[in-house]
């Protein structure tokens, strides 16, 4: 039994935490919140230089080749500091899509630039309100050209290229890669519940695009989303943990009625419930990290479980962090809302927990019917 991250990744975590706490305090995210340019470009360059964008990219394409466990570790740290950089879009989504489904040529063309941060990639897949349903996508890829509109594309304001999910005919590719600098691409920057990240509605009007030839049908999109969800779950866990720590520290130092408010059971027990939510999320995340790294058939189930648990932890922790802070908690000047906003953004980004609950049960049902369920998730 060795259900923990290897030592080298724990060291990576310590390094990342030390760097990010110093380099990316909440004030950095607050700046992004209040200005049009949502990216801390210096930070982005720095983490690119340290190889944090390329942890899962093989060395052949300019990456560190550390695998996905390293990305999970880094994602949690990015979440802890609610970093104002397009990490999720570029790493969990664009990089992952290319790693999974790109041709050798596509990998050679895009991965080295993603690895350094020179290029920012994203994934464009939302078309309407309600659950994500690849079968109902209206965006079409025909004769090398892409037509359609995608909503709330994460970092759509700054991304250089996008992987775009399209309606697929049977086994035809369901993902295309598009240069967002093309003249036939129009971007409308849109406000979201978390203005510390940039989002855009992007319209493609016959834009030249290239399919990812191995991304066959709707399953390809779902597999990509499953993998992104695991890494995102770690980032969510980071946000939840940071919010819990903020609330805990305040409850220890703030006095009311002559005593620290954390000595009142109303606050103490509330924070214990938050702690439990974060620990249940952490354990589910570890399981999902294992499934991701080991290419386990449990991935669909584990990804859903980690996402559901992290969505719950993020909501509980960031909501009750505000509540614990009382009046100051809902002011603009206090940082509580930065976590509250980010946690919600993450919880919506890949489809809400409600949708993932249905996916989870579908996957459990499928596994039940399959031959050899493994021992771990019985």
């Amino acid at each position, binding site marked *: 039994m060795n259900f923990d991250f290897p030592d080298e990744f724990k060291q990576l975590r310590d390094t990342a935490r030390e760097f990010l706490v110093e380099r990316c305090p909440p004030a950095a995210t607050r700046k992004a919140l209040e200005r049009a340019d949502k990216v801390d470009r210096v930070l982005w360059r720095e983490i690119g230089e340290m190889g944090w964008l390329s942890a899962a990219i093989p060395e052949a394409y300019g990456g560190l080749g550390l695998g996905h466990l390293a990305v999970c570790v880094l994602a949690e740290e990015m979440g802890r500091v609610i970093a104002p950089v397009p990490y999720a879009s570029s790493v969990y989504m664009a990089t992952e899509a290319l790693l999974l489904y790109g041709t050798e040529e596509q990998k050679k063309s895009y991965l080295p630039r993603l690895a350094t941060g020179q290029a920012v990639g994203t994934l464009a897949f939302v078309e*309407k309100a309600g659950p*994500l349903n690849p079968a109902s996508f209206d965006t079409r890829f025909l004769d090398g050209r892409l037509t359609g509109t995608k909503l709330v594309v994460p970092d759509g304001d700054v991304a250089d290229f996008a992987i775009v999910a399209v309606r697929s005919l049977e086994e035809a590719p369901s993902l295309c890669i598009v240069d967002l600098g093309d003249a036939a691409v129009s971007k409308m920057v849109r*406000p979201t519940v978390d203005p510390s990240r940039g989002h855009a509605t992007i319209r493609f009007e016959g834009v030249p695009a290239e399919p990812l030839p191995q991304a066959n049908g709707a399953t390809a999109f779902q597999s990509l989303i499953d993998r992104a969800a695991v890494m995102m779950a770690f980032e969510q866990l980071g946000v939840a943990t940071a919010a819990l720590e903020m609330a805990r520290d305040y409850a220890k130092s703030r006095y009311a009625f002559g*005593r620290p408010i954390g000595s009142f059971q109303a606050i103490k027990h509330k924070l214990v419930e938050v702690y439990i939510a974060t620990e249940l999320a952490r354990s589910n995340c570890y399981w999902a990290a294992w499934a991701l790294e080991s290419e386990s058939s449990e991935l669909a189930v584990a990804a859903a479980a980690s996402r559901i648990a992290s969505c719950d932890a993020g909501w509980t922790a960031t909501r009750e962090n505000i*509540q614990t802070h009382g009046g100051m908690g809902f002011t603009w000047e206090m940082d509580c809302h930065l976590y509250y906003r980010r946690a919600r953004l993450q919880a919506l980004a890949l489809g*809400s927990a409600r949708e993932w609950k249905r996916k989870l049960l579908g996957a459990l049902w499928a596994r039940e019917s399959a031959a050899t369920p493994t021992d771990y998730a019985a």
Partner: protein
Amino acid sequence: MDFTDSFDEAEYRAKCRRFLDATLPRRHPGHVRGYRRGEDGPDVVPQAKAFQRKKFDAGFAGITWPKEWHGQAGTPVQQMIYDQEEAKYDTTVNAIGLQLNICMPTICRWGTQEQRDRFAPPALRGEEVWCQFYSEPSGGSDLGSLRTRATRDGDEWVINGQKIWTSLAHEADWGVLIARSDFDKPKHEGLTFFYLSTKTPGVEIRQIKQMSGASHFNEVFFKDARIPDSQRLGPVDGGWKVAMSLLMGERYSLDDDFGPSFKELFSLTRQLELNGRPAFEDGGVQDRLADFYVKAQGLRFTRYRIMTSLARGEAPGPEASIGKLVAATMIQDAASYGLELLGAAGAEMGADMPLEGIFEESFLDSPAFRIAGGTDEILRNTIGERVLGLPPDLRADKGMPFKAIPVGSK
């Protein structure tokens, strides 16, 4: 058991409707009260003042106040009927009502007839706006731990300190103030109550920006602000009792529809598709909607029970205390569930989102509801002790001189 008015009630209701029809636009069906968009504009207070003037002229200002307070000497039922009817109109314009109903009764109750004559009429006419200098940064839920200092200097008092969460202060002409006149006495025993002009030298008012972007509150700084002793209400060091009588003046909220709840979710789930069917048909959606419905109806009919007590001239029962506690969480949950149903697209904000974007806005607004006007935790204490009769918590600061009590963030 019925929901119908008595003859007198029906008559008064008709009178209210005539006035309101002539004065205000009806709420359009999708409009949700308490939904803040647009309520921050520069016109809000001038409009509210103008509307207050019309209410005064029509005999709906100070409905339950006695004649000595320049009120209408009406009944609580009349007030209730008026409020019920007003709730059907676009009452963004009523921004100054709450403060009026909290501050002025204190002035009238503790002040001289001369003070009543000076202050009640302009307040009732909407000419002068009031605010309360009350909470402090170090205090929060523990109001009694306030540390703004009132030092006697001959016939005057010198005020130094800081207040916070002062609604309307930046628009107000006058404010009521509670300050500490003796730091050596236990915390509730060294407080004195005053009123003063917001234009008094040494008073500085700054708006507080909330996480939602709105600014409903202010911080107020007092630096050697001077108040004549004639503007003291109640005895020296006897301000706690005055302040408590003020809090008791808070009326029961008869207003529902304060944020997204069942109605908005019901509407959303009829527009939205899940797997090719209206979301409303989904079993999970129905389970959640039922919970919201039953809770919302529970609150609605609890209000009807309160109204019935008032109509009978009785004090409302203890059930009157649960409304705000239940509603605040319900609104936050409804906002959250609305976003969950919208899914990935729900992150976007704006009036072109489903239901004019109420779920996204309320997501950012609703945390304040669980805190302002008494946190969830304080309300549970109050209900547990006053309604259920459970024993109070231990008091760490019981009988201690105020200056020895640890406060705030130290």
